[in-house]
């Protein structure tokens, strides 16, 4: 085992422990903090995959915006930290069975297939290529513009839905 494999194992422990904390913790606020931990672990994966810009976006958007938004929503709607509040519904056991079965099927398939990977290095100007492809008509300028419209619509829609009448 070499260094990058060790880093990978530590990162996956961080991400998976965070995820388990999110779905099992009764206290919603603590669950949100575990969610932040899981997001940071995933950002580490992106650095390991040499997609540095995506790691920065992950930290900015998920940790900086989405997690804070979720914590705000928890604080605006809190009522429920009483000891008799049940965090799980009646079908949680079936949910667990379904999730474990899905993981078993996925792991079986993923370990069976040999993927056509290539031993290559990322081009050193990958970030420049990403930026250029987002604005070039031969690249992804249309999804880029549609994403901006989507964000505007979501912003206006969220304000209108959450506004006090």
């Amino acid at each position, binding site marked *: 085992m070499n260094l*990058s*494999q060790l880093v*990978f194992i530590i990162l*996956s422990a961080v*991400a*998976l422990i965070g*995820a388990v904390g*999110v*779905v099992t913790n009764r206290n919603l606020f603590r669950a949100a903090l575990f*969610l932040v931990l899981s*997001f940071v672990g*995933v950002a580490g*994966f*992106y650095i390991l*995959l*040499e*997609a540095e*810009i*995506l790691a920065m976006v992950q930290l900015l*958007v*998920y940790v900086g915006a989405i997690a804070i*938004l979720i914590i*705000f*929503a928890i604080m605006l*709607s809190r*009522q*429920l930290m009483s000891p008799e509040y049940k*965090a*799980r*519904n009646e079908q*949680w056991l079936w*949910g*667990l069975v*379904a*999730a*474990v079965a*899905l*993981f078993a099927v*996925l*792991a079986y398939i*993923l370990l069976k297939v040999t*993927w056509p*990977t*290539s031993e*290559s*290095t990322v*081009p050193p100007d*990958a970030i420049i*290529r*990403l930026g250029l492809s987002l604005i070039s008509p031969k690249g992804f300028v249309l*999804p880029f513009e549609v*994403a901006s419209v*989507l*964000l505007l619509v*979501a*912003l206006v829609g*969220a304000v209108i*839905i*959450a506004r*006090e009448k």
Partner: protein
Amino acid sequence: MNIPLSWYLIVAAALFCIGLYGVLSRRNAIAILMGVELMLNAVNINLLAFWRYVEAVQGTVTGQVFAIIVITVAAAEAAVGLALIIAVYRNRKTVNVEDVDLMKL
């Protein structure tokens, strides 16, 4: 590059299944939304792992663009979803999905 691709895929599958369990088992709507965010993160790990191991040799960045679009949609989904939860809480004084059954027969 001495990490096999299948390690990333297995971890992403585990993250996806944990998120799925959260969506299926929680009663609180905000907790369900957190499960959905975990699942979207797992998908992004897959996209970037395939980009790194399969596409990067060609020097193109389609996988990264796809991941950016997924993050954008996740942000929009979180904003609108949390606004809906706030609106439901204001009207019904609950965020339990079992108690929000206005459209049930």
